């Protein structure tokens, strides 16, 4: 069921994303590759400027598509088509989140590739060297990577949560405002939690070390490994809560009125 | 059968009346198969339930019978059909006579007028 929903959700939404990605890739990857690394007439700063705009546009476009796509599924009749299907609300929501997530990944990969191409990667850095560097710091990079992916999904679910709560007829009049406030609030909250926690990691580590005759963990280990998993877990918990919250709201509001 | 039913009265009664007319005038002969509820409901645009009710009533009145799961047929009981004919005729006569009476025509005049009309036609 999830696969089917995912497939159809893709069919329903691929056009805007697809076009934007293709245009972006054409402008920032294909063109530079083919038109040489030494554009004689255009200055470097101009190119950087253009590149920056492209990046900004694609990020904005992606955000708008995600927002609009989800709003449509709540507001338009064809959107509610998905909810008439004999599947649980959580499954339908999950399919939508995953589709948005996939597109987000695609966009970031494109951004990475574009940056790589346009920044004329430092000579001598081969793929193997990058890989080696990665594995050396894996215990930090992996939770970081996972944390980032989770953050992306959380971002999407948070967005959906805010849009859904803005749909409450009860809050209809201030709905949009509530949505935006909630969004900012949770973002701020997440950042706060992370920063606070990171700042206190040092103290925590020292405290733990003092409490035992033999340190449970060395400072080094603590900093470079396990501790980074805590924000990841926190993120996962927030994600879970937001997802559950959105489902609950959807259960109430698959009305269009 | 294509009929304009008046929704101002029960449709099943009108349907029955139409059927009876067709049986009496031999458009439907004894032993003829009747359309299925479904087909009739579609061609008339009327709820199957209504059709079914009409059929059941006519079965009760002995005008139709069901052959197991093979469909419905007009009764082969010619006596019953004759009875229906007579019923029909009497109903029409009653209607006619009442109308004449309401218009102030006397009973004796009615018979004369009928005779005249028939002689004029034939």
């Amino acid at each position: 069921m999830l696969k089917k929903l995912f497939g159809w959700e893709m069919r329903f939404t691929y056009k805007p994303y697809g076009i934007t990605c293709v245009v972006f890739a054409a402008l920032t990857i294909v063109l530079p590759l083919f038109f040489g690394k030494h554009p004689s007439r255009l200055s470097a700063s101009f190119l950087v400027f253009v590149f920056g705009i492209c990046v900004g546009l694609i990020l904005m476009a992606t955000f708008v598509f995600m927002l609009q796509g989800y709003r449509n599924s709540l507001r338009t009749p064809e959107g509610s088509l998905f909810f008439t299907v004999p599947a649980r609300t959580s499954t339908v929501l999950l399919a939508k989140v995953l589709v948005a997530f996939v597109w987000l990944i695609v966009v970031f990969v494109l951004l990475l590739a574009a940056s790589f191409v346009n920044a004329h990667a430092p000579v001598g850095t081969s793929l193997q060297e990058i890989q080696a560097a990665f594995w050396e710091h894996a215990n930090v990079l992996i939770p970081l990577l996972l944390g980032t992916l989770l953050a992306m999904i959380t971002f999407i679910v948070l967005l959906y949560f805010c849009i859904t709560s803005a749909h409450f007829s009860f809050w209809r009049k201030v709905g949009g405002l509530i949505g935006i406030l909630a969004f900012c609030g949770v973002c701020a909250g997440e950042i706060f939690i992370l920063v606070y926690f990171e700042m206190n990691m040092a103290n925590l580590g020292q405290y733990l070390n003092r409490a035992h005759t033999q340190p449970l963990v060395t400072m080094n280990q603590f900093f470079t490994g396990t501790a980074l998993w805590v924000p990841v877990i926190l993120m996962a918990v927030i994600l879970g809560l937001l997802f559950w919250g959105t489902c609950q709201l959807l259960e109430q509001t698959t009305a269009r009125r | 059968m294509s009929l304009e039913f008046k929704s101002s009265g029960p449709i099943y009664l009108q349907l029955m009346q139409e059927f009876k007319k067709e049986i009496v005038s031999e458009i439907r002969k004894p032993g003829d198969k009747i359309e299925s509820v479904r087909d009739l409901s579609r061609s008339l645009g009327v709820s199957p339930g209504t059709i079914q009710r009409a059929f059941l009533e006519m079965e009760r009145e002995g005008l139709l019978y069901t052959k197991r799961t093979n469909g419905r047929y007009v009764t082969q009981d010619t006596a019953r059909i004759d009875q229906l004919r007579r019923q029909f005729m009497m109903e029409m006569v009653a209607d006619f006579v009442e109308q004449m009476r309401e218009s102030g025509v006397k009973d004796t005049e009615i018979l004369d007028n009928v005779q005249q009309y028939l002689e004029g036609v034939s």
Partner: protein
Amino acid sequence: MRFAGKEVLKGLSLRIPRGQIVGLLGPNGAGKTTLLRILSVLLKGWHGQAVVAGQEIGQASKAKVSYLPDKPSLANWMRVQDAVHFYAEFFADFDQAKAQTLLTRLHLDAQSKIGGLSKGTVEKVQVVLTMSRKAELYLLDEPISGVDPAAREVIMDTILSQYEEDSTIILSTHMVQEVERIFDSVVFLKEGQVVLQDAVETLREEHQESIDDLFKEVFRC
């Protein structure tokens, strides 16, 4: 089926036996669409109890209920064929062959895009899709409003032709005259409450008038 609701529908209690074609009649805003959306499990947040085919409504009942919304629910970019595939994929009781036969019979081109079709044609497509499911309950919300008379005939015929004895159809409309012949019974809904529910023929016999006239009487003012 029994039902009791709130707000837009106030203390509504309704029981509909299986196998009937029921007309849900009332002026705009009476709560017809709300009731149908509740029964199709699209609308939640109501209080009370609703039972369909012996089962409390929920995800499982969605599989037994085929819902035709009052507004078009197919995306403009979809081709008719895509819509058929959608239904086929998600509804186990969808008879694809039957749907395609019906579409052909109604001269509906499977390759045409929904966005390019007239309102009446889209309605026809939706009716075909909805009725091609072998459901226990069909909920049709205003299938003939805003549709030209010719299309109306076709739609009614499609409904009647797909009707099975052991399934129930609830059809809501405010155009009573055009549809009243296909009903077995009607429910009059006024401001969220049932003001009348009876078999159609009984009502005609009692009041010696059409349901349309009765409707106008009941909802005058």
